[in-house]
C-alpha cells in the first residue's frame, strides 16, 4: 500500500516536473522572438508599429545573372538563404507568400532578411566586378570587329563614295543611308551571331541593386549597342562623303 502511495506521489511529482518543464519550454519559445529582436537591434514598440505595414505583397527576388535565358525567380518560390543570415533566421525561414498573422515582429525580420539578401547580392556583384576588371583591362575594347560589323563599315564607305559621285545631286545623302540601315537590319540574320557577353560594370551593378530587373537592363544595353552601331555607320558614311567631296574638289581645281 505504502509503495503504491509512493508510486503515486512519484508519478504526481514527475508529472509536476513535466508540467514545469513544459511551462519553461513554452516560456522560452514565446520569449525567443523578443530575444531575437533585441539581438538584431529592433525595439519591441517599432515592431508593433510596423505590424500594419507587414501585410505587403511579396516582392520579386532580383537575379544576379544578366543572362537572358535565366528565368526570374517567382515571388512564391522560397528564396535562397543568404550566408549572412543568422542561423536562427535561416532555420525559421518561411516562404514569402505566408502572412505572419500571429507574428507582430515578422516585418522587422523580413526587412532584415531583405537587407541581408541585398547585401549578399552586393558582395557577389563586387566579386564579379573584381573578376571582370582584369579581363576588361587586358581584353579588347567594347567595339569588337565581328564580320557583320566590318561588312557594315565597308558598306557605308562604298555607299558614301557612290552617293557623292552619282546620287547627291538629286536627293539628300541621308536617304540612301537610311535605306542602307534598313537593309542591314534584314541582312543581320545571314551573318554568324557573335555572342556578346554582358559585362558587369559599376553601372549595371548599381541598376541591379536599385531593383531594376536584369531583363530590362539587358534589353536596354542591347538597344544602346545597336544605336551605337548605327551612329558609327553614320559617322563613317558622313566622313567618307565629305572626304570624297574634298578630294573631288581638289582634283577639279587641279585639272586645267
Amino acid at each position, binding site marked *: 500500500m505504502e509503495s503504491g502511495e509512493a508510486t503515486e506521489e512519484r508519478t504526481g511529482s514527475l508529472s509536476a516536473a513535466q508540467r514545469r518543464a513544459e511551462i519553461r519550454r513554452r516560456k522560452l519559445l514565446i520569449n525567443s522572438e523578443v530575444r531575437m529582436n533585441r539581438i538584431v537591434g529592433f525595439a519591441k514598440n517599432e515592431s508593433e508599429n510596423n505590424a500594419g505595414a507587414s501585410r505587403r505583397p511579396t516582392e520579386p527576388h532580383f537575379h544576379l545573372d544578366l543572362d537572358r535565358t535565366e528565368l526570374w525567380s517567382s515571388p512564391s518560390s522560397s528564396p535562397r538563404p543568404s550566408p549572412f543570415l543568422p542561423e536562427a533566421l535561416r532555420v525559421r525561414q518561411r516562404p514569402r507568400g505566408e502572412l505572419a498573422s500571429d507574428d507582430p515582429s515578422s516585418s522587422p525580420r523580413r526587412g532584415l532578411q531583405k537587407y541581408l539578401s541585398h547585401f549578399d547580392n552586393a558582395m557577389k556583384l563586387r566579386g564579379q566586378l573584381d573578376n571582370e576588371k582584369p579581363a576588361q583591362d587586358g581584353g579588347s*575594347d567594347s*567595339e569588337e*570587329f565581328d564580320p557583320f560589323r566590318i561588312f557594315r*563599315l565597308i558598306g557605308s564607305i562604298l555607299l558614301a563614295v557612290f552617293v557623292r559621285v552619282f546620287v*547627291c545631286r538629286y536627293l*539628300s*545623302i*541621308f536617304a540612301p543611308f537610311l535605306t542602307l540601315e534598313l537593309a542591314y537590319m534584314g541582312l543581320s540574320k545571314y551573318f554568324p551571331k557573335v555572342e556578346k557577353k554582358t559585362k558587369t560594370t559599376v553601372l549595371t551593378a548599381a541598376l541591379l541593386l536599385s531593383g531594376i530587373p536584369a531583363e530590362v537592363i539587358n534589353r536596354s544595353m542591347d538597344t544602346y549597342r545597336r544605336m551605337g552601331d548605327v*551612329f*558609327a555607320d553614320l*559617322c*563613317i558614311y*558622313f*566622313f567618307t562623303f*565629305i572626304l570624297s*567631296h*574634298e578630294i573631288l*574638289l581638289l582634283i577639279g581645281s587641279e585639272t586645267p
Partner: protein
Amino acid sequence: EDKNMAAGCAWFLVLGSVFLCSLMKTLLPTISSFLSKMVQKDAEQESEMRAEIQEMKKEQSSISMMDEFARYARLERKINKMTDKLKTHVKSRTAQQAKMKWVVNIVFYILQAALMISLIWKYYSDPVTVVPSRWIAPVERLVAFPTGVAGGVGITCWLVVCNKVVTLCLHAVS
C-alpha cells in the same frame, strides 16, 4: 587665294588634331613608363639586390641546417633583411611610377582640352567645309551648328565625326 586655301584645309586641320590626340592617348602608358625610367636614379640597385638575394638563397640551399645552424641562421637573417629592403625599394618605385602616370595623364588632358577649345574658338562662326545645303537636308541646321551657315559643316559635328572615325581606325589597326 591663300585665305581660301586655309579655309579649304580647315577640315583637314581638325582631322589631324583629333588624330594626333588619339594617337598620343594610346601612347600615354609608353610615355609615362619611359619618363619614370628616366627619372628613376637607382634602377640598377633593385636588380643588384635581386641577384644578391638569389645568390644567398643558393648558398643557403647548399648548407645543411643541422650541421651549420649558425651560418644558416645568419644567411636567413641577411636574406630577410635584403628582401625587406627590396620590398621597400619596389614600393617606392611603384609609387613613383603611379605618380608619373598621373602627371602625364593630367598634362595630356589639359593639352587636349586646350587644343579642342582653341579649335572651337577659331571655327565657331566659320564652317570647316561647305556643301550644297540640299545635300544634307533635313539636318542642315544641326550639321552647321554653331556657324548657322547654310550647307556648312560646323566644328562640333566635324569633331564628333572625326573622333569616332579615328577611334575606329586606331582600334582596327591596333
